[in-house]
Every structure is written in C-alpha cells, then in structure tokens.
C-alpha cells in the first residue's frame, strides 16, 4: 500500500513543474549565489575601496602609501576616476574632497596622512606627539573601517622597516642613553642595507607582507564617521528599504496574479467584452498595484519610525519619490510575470525563484558593498539594488531629492519597459 502512495506522489510531483522548480532549482540557485558571495569564487573577493590623501609626502608617508597600495584586499585611489580614459587625470583628493566622496558613498573609508607624519610616524606606547592619521568612514559599513585600520597597522609594520628602525634608535637614545659611536656606525650600516632591500622590493613591485603580521597600534589613527554619525538607529533605514523592496516584489506579483485568476474564471473575457480595453485594464491594474506597493512601503517605514526611531518625517520628499518609483517598478515587474505565466502555480514558482534571486544579488538579504565586485555589478540588473541605493541616499546620506536622479531614472525606465512588455504579451488574452 505504501508503494502505490509513493508512486502517485512522485508522478504528481513530476507533472508539477512549479513544485519541481521550487524543490530543486531554487535551492541550487541560492546555494550558488551565496557561494559566490561568501566563497570568493573566481578570485573575486570583495575589495574595500579606500581613498588615500597624502598631505605629508615624506619618505615614511610614501612608504605607507605604497604598503597600502600593495594590499590585495584594498582598492586604493588617490584621485577620482576620470569619466573617460582619454581625459586628463583629475587632481588628487584633498582632505575635504575625500570627506565629500565618503559622504557621497563613493568609498566607505578615506585615510588622510597629515603633514608632519614623516617626522614622527610611529607612536610606541601611546605617544601623543605622533601626528594622527585620520580615518573617515561611512558608518553604514561597519566592517570596512576595522579592516582598513588593521591593514594600516600591517602596512606600517611591513612597508616602513627603515622608519621603524630609525624610530627604535630614537627611543633607545631617548630612554636608554644612546649608542656608542661604534654601535651607531654599525646601526647606520644596517639601516643602509635595509634601505637597499626596501628599494629593490619597491622596484620589483612585490608584496612581501607576511600573511599575519598582527597590529600593535604603532600608527596613531583617529577614526571619525562622516556619514550616519548622528543617526539614532544606524541600519534601520537600510533594512526597511531592503526587506521592504523584497516583500513589495512578492506583493506586486501576487496582486498581478489576479489577472490569471480572472482569465481562468472567464471574468477577463467578460470585462474585455465590455467597453474596457486591454490597455485600460492593465493600466488600471498597474496603478492599483503601484499604490498598493507604495502603501505597503509606507506602513513599513511608519512602523520603523514608531518602533525603531527611523527618521521618516524629515525625509518625506525623498521617501515619496523613491517609494513611488520603486512601487511603480515592482508593480510593472509583477504585471510582466503575470502576463508571461499561464497559471497561478506557475507564477508562484517563477516569481519566488526570481524574487529571491534578485533579492540575494540586489542586496535585500546581504549588503551589496560586502559582495565581490562582480556580484555588485550583477546587482545593478535588479530593482532591489537601485531602490536600496536610492533609499540609502535619502535616509543615510541625507542627500536632496535632486541627487536621486539616477535611481529614479532607472526605476522609471525599468517600470515603463516592463509594462510595455507585459502589454505586448497580454495580447494573447485579447482576441483569439
């Protein structure tokens, strides 16, 4: 008796493509996405963008810059990238422009090596006289500043051996009573050899940094958040947007699926036999689904304001603009899926598959700035990424509505294109 039951169930499953897709394709797709994000496949481990400003231009600061540039996990830039390759390079970052770049979200961290750093670069034992390197960070990224801080200490240990030795001698002179002439002569000879080795390494351009050099805080660093420093609940707006967009996609798809119910019940035929045309019908449903999605987003942000102190009411214009554009794009996405699918079950399977994948790649489940570069770029093909970027600009960076033009343009364009496609595909219901 058990065998026939199993056999019937297997036959049913094999004929239900939607269940098959959810059972096998979705887990594999998800596994692959997260393997790429966390597994560092294809050598695409996330590199942290760091803006570096050297105000000192001393030997020590240049050594430190070179050491940081050799770090494979850092992408160091000393000047803004030119928009086209043939253009003349832009001027180097200054402290002010670096801070502005961090505020604009161009990089999560900026390091500013102050003037006079080379005169006293090492701060053994909490030497307060050592000039402090400024670390400016965007507090939405909690990992980047800590990594940069650690790598800075590592670079100091490995890229500045001469400076370290000179400083050591200086401390010996200061606290032990100094070297004898013979000792100083031998020390100077060794330092010369060290300088030659360092020069050869620089010429070879290789990274001789040991895998784990540790950090003892030899470089004095003063960290300062330049974005989100006064936010009461730092990540709430990010999660409200990221989770919100994912559920908006589910809601919009489910709501658009009513079209399939109506087609199946014959209601669609009856409606289209009246004065209502397919364009009017789809347009009406698009507006309804947009308003539904926007209301859902508004409720979520209101909840965030009431319970998690999300600063909603000082960002109303930005919220309205981003909320409506996002709602429009997800509504059109839902309409397209509903027009492609033949049945509700098919819509359920395909939408679950697509939405979860888009959410994973687009940053709804895991911040995109922590993903490998290739994944970050792939995320730009999702509605989630553009919506989250826009909401981040509004709620995190406090940017004015005018700064949202990129996100707004993309979301509106996506919405229009998807709706036009949905309208074309919906011709199958119009007339036989």
């Amino acid at each position, binding site marked *: 008796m058990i065998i026939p039951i199993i056999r019937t169930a297997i036959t049913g499953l094999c004929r239900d493509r939607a269940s098959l897709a959810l059972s096998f394709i979705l887990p594999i797709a998800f596994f692959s996405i997260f393997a790429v994000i966390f597994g560092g496949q294809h050598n695409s481990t996330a590199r942290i963008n760091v803006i570096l400003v050297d105000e000192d231009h001393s030997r020590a600061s240049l050594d430190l810059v070179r050491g940081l540039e050799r770090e494979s996990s850092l992408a160091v830039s000393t000047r803004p990238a030119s928009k086209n390759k043939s253009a003349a390079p832009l001027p180097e970052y200054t402290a002010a422009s670096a801070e502005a770049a961090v505020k604009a979200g161009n990089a999560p961290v900026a390091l500013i090596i102050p003037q006079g750093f080379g005169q006293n670069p090492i701060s053994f034992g909490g030497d307060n006289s050592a000039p402090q390197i400024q670390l400016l960070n965007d507090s939405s990224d909690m990992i980047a500043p800590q990594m940069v801080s650690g790598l800075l200490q590592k670079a100091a240990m490995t890229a500045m051996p001469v400076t370290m030795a000179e400083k050591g001698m200086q401390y010996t002179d200061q606290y032990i009573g100094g070297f004898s002439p013979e000792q100083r002569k031998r020390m100077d000879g060794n330092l010369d050899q060290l300088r030659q080795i360092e020069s050869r390494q620089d010429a070879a351009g290789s990274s001789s940094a040991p895998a784990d050099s540790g950090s003892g805080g030899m470089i004095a660093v003063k960290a300062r958040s330049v974005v989100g420093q006064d936010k009461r609940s730092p990540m709430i707006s990010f999660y409200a947007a990221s989770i919100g967009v994912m559920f908006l996609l589910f809601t919009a798809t489910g709501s658009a699926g009513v079209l399939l119910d109506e087609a199946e019940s014959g209601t669609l035929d009856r409606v289209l036999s*009246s004065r209502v045309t397919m364009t009017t019908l789809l347009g009406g449903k698009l507006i309804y689904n947009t308003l539904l999605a926007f209301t859902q987003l508004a409720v979520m942000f209101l909840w965030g304001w009431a319970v998690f102190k999300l600063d909603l009411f000082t960002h109303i214009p930005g919220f309205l603009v981003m909320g409506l554009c996002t709602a429009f794009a997800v509504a059109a996405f839902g309409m397209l899926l509903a027009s492609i699918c033949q049945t509700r079950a098919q819509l359920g399977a395909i939408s679950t598959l697509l939405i979860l994948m888009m959410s994973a790649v687009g940053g709804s489940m895991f911040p995109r700035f922590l993903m490998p570069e290739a994944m970050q770029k792939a995320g730009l093909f999702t509605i989630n990424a553009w919506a989250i970027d826009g909401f981040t600009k509004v709620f995190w960076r406090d940017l004015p509505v005018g700064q949202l033009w990129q996100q707004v343009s993309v979301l509106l364009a996506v919405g229009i294109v998807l709706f036009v496609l949905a309208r074309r595909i919906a011709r199958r219901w119009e007339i036989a």
Partner: protein
Amino acid sequence: MSANLPLVNATESSPTPLEIDCLSKSFGEVIAVDGVSLELHAGECLGLLGPNGAGKSTLIRSIVGRILPDAGRVSVFGFAASSPEARAALGWVPQELALYPRLTCKENLAAFGRYHGLSGGKLTESVAWCLDWAALTDRAGDLEKNLSGGMKRRLNMAAGIIHRPRVVLMDEPTVGVDPQSRNRIFEMIEALRDKGAAIIYTTHYMEEAERLCDRVAIIDHGRIIAQGTNQELVHSTFASRSQVVARFAGPADEVSLWVEQHAGHLVDGSAEFTIEHSTEIAGLLDDAAHAGLELLDVTLRRPNLESVFLHLTGRELRD
C-alpha cells in the same frame, strides 16, 4: 419584479438585431465554425443546440468579439461586432461564473455596469433592477463566494444584462443548478424576451429549448445542420413517422443483433424504431416473437426535439 424600468431600447425602425453571414473560424487544423449564417429578430429566443465541441461557444465568442473570425461577418444592429455600438447592444452571459468572488452581488453588478460606461443614478437604477430581476435583492450585500450555485448563476446572468443590452447571448446558463433555480432562470429569460430582447440560448437540455426557444438551430462540426421551430424541425426530420420503443428479455447480443437487422437502435437497453404507420408495430412484434425474443413492454411515441437532435447528430460520444 418591478416592470417600470424598460430593459431594452429597441425601436421599430432598428435594423435586424443580429446578423451572422458565412462566419468561419479554425484553430489550426480544427474547423470550429464553418460558414454559419443566422439571423435573430427582436423579441425572439433562438436556441443553439449542438453536442460538445460542435462550435457553439466559438460562435458565441465570435459574436461578442472575443474571437476574430477567419471569414464572414457579424453585425449587431448593422454595426460590426467589435464596434463600441455593438458592444453596448450586446450582453453576454458566459458559461463560467465570470464574477468577482470577493465582491457582493451589488458590487459585482456595479463593477460590470461601470465597465459598460454606466454611472450615477443610471447605474444605481440598473443595479436595483438587475437584483430584482435575478431575485437577489435580499442578498445584495452578500459576497458572491457565499451564494448558492443557483444564486451565482442568476447573478452571472444579471451581470450580463446590467447595461440593458438589446441582444443577449446566454451560454448554458443553467449548468449545475437545481430545478427551482432553473425554473427561476426560465422566468428571467422569458421576462427579458417579453421586453423585446433578442436572445441566443445555448443548452444541452432539450426541454429547456422546447420551453424557451421560438426557433432552434442545431449545430454540429461547426455547421448549422437544421433550423426552424420545434414543429418544423420534427416535421422536416421525421415527417409523419413515429417512434416505437420496446424492451425485450433475452441475451443482450441476440437482442442487439435483431434490433440492428430491423433498422433500430438500442438506447439504455430499449430498442427504438421509426415507423411510418402504427400498423407496422404488429409486424415488428411478430418478428421479435419468431426470433425468440420475449417482449417486456412497448410504447408508441411522437418524435420530439431530442429525437431530432439525436437523429441529426448521431449517438456517438463526442468527448
């Protein structure tokens, strides 16, 4: 039922409500409608009968503009089927319950009324009239999904005439309803016809067609194979012939063979024969006795619409 609201606005000078001329439609290799021509007059109910897959629904959907014919023409009061004028004049009651389950009866009617361009007082008036016509006034606030099968059918019909069309197409509106609801539906259709609506009524139930329809068209394999009043169809098919229905005891294969030899056929265990004169009955029964078949009972029957239908479309299963 209130009678102070005119259902239809037919005028004496109006052209023919519905004209179908050589309509054809194929789906791939399958010819669904094959050169159908029909005419429907005001205040007339035309029964469209045919086996499953005969082309009834395709024909109806072509009339309401949901199917684009390959050839031929459909005109409603002189307007093409796809024109706004034709849409306004046509009412369609589909076979499916094409309603919104989460809306109340009143909300459903109002929604379809708006889709047909009604608003304000006219909409309110039409909704009230339709609720009354469908005997759903006291259930106006009930959700569609909570109604009984018969009520849903009546609401489905009401939604089809909310805009007071002059031509109404009803595709098997009594499927799955109890005799009480069916009787109520008949009254609704008769009321519509009495007010001047031209109605096409498709059904599998011959007694419905006999009761409601002024004329009947029988469609099979996409073609109209006969049309006329009940009497005309019976007369043209059987002339003055009658049917003899007899039951015999004995081995089934012997009975079957004997019935076949005498140009009859077995229906549910009874042998049916068509005879010209009642005197032929005695000869048939004598032959049966000589063949060793024991007669259980015998009936002489005048042919009816069902006899015509089965005679013309055959008895083979179609699906």
